[in-house]
Each structure stands twice: as structure tokens, then as C-alpha cells.
């Protein structure tokens, strides 16, 4: 019988994201933002990450008081496919954000090749998405 233990993770090695700081929405706040997402009528690509990624923050803003659908696919496996009513204009998918320390969901999402987040609204044509994604080497 062997006592060898396989596995054990270690830290992720980050890949280049050279303008990471200047591209943050507010310098010093660790998130970026994608605006003007017209998600009406059909599932719409909010973000599609290709390569190895660590997604530590993902919040969708907008689409208040309406029925929406959220679909999250990681490495071709659908992990969320849900239709619900948005309250307070905010849908937390991953992480904790800013002063909204009560907005806690999954710690992070990791992918080997792809994370796809799709969103569908009834009427909102200008959803915004705040996120923190780190490319992994």
C-alpha cells in the first residue's frame, strides 16, 4: 500500500493581462465592465472566455423586475440554466463585489478552455456586466 498522495493544487500562474489596472472600471477597484449588452428576446453572449481562465467576479446589472434566463457553460458543461425574476437590478453569479458584501455566490469559476455566460431579458436592451477574469498560463 502506498502512502503517495497525488494531486494537491498549488497556486495558479497568471498569464499576461498587461493593461489590467488601467482597464478597470474605476482604478483601484478590481473589476472590469462591459456595457450596452442588448439581451432582449434570445440568449445573448454576455461574456465568452476562451483559454484557461479564473473568473472571480461576475455580476449582471439591469433587467430589474422582469423574468430573465441565465445560462452558464464551463468547458462545454452547462452548470446553470435558470429562468427567474430579477430583483434589485442585480444578478450575482460569482464573487463578492465592492461594498455589497452580502452579495456572495460561488467563490470562482475556473475553465480549461471556455466559460460562456448567456443572458436573456424581456425588455432590457442595455445590461451591463462587471467582472474580474484572470488569464491562466
Amino acid at each position, binding site marked *: 500500500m502506498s502512502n503517495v498522495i497525488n494531486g494537491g493544487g498549488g497556486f495558479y500562474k497568471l*498569464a*499576461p*493581462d498587461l493593461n489590467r489596472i*488601467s*482597464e*478597470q*472600471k*474605476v*482604478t483601484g477597484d478590481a473589476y*472590469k*465592465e*462591459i*456595457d*450596452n*449588452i*442588448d*439581451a432582449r428576446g434570445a440568449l*445573448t*453572449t*454576455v*461574456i*465568452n*472566455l*476562451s*483559454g*484557461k*481562465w479564473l473568473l472571480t467576479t461576475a455580476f449582471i446589472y439591469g433587467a430589474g423586475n422582469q423574468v430573465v434566463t441565465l445560462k452558464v457553460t464551463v468547458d462545454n458543461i452547462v452548470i446553470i440554466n435558470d429562468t427567474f425574476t430579477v430583483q434589485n437590478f442585480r444578478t450575482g453569479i460569482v464573487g463578492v463585489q465592492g461594498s455589497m458584501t452580502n452579495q456572495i455566490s460561488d467563490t470562482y469559476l475556473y475553465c480549461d478552455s471556455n466559460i460562456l455566460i448567456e443572458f436573456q431579458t424581456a425588455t432590457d436592451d442595455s*445590461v*451591463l*456586466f462587471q467582472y474580474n*477574469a484572470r*488569464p491562466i498560463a
Partner: protein
Amino acid sequence: MKKINIIFKSKTHKIESVGVKSVNSYLLNITRGEFKLRMTQVERIAIRQLAMSDAIVYDFMDLLSDIEIVPLDQPEVIDGINYCSKLGAFTKVRASEILGNG
């Protein structure tokens, strides 16, 4: 089919979205000195000369002299620079560069 925009791209990683990359609000607000330094000396002199004969350019210069921070996305700033370009102080390409983010 909605258009997909590239938000980030490197040799090994890519981010795409139907939305557009948000501009850091910090980059849209620069000091008056930084704003002037975006222009060449020839361009600055051209604007001053225009201000002596054109009331709109004079008003734009007067507006700039009253503010410490120049908001590059402010309609008055965009209109002012484009107007100076229209009068020949600099090209349209230079106007775009002067108003550019960061």
C-alpha cells in the same frame, strides 16, 4: 444574429461579448495642462489665433480656462475641439487623437 465584439485578445486567451468594453472613467477626466499637452505648439497657437476672430472658439477657450479638469466625454469639449478642427486648427484625425481615451 447579434454582433460579437472582441473585448480582450492575446496569443492564448480571448474575451468576446455582444456588449462593448467600458472606458475607465479615470481616463476620461484629465487636467487642463494634460489637455493642452495633447496638442502641439502649432495647434495651440492656431486655436488662440482663431479665438481672436471667432466668438465660438473664444467661448470654448473661456470655458476651458474656468475648469481644472477637462471631461473628454463632455459634449461642449467634443464640440469645441471638432469646431476648431473644422476651422483648420488641426485635422479631423488630430481632433480624434486629442479627444481619445488615455
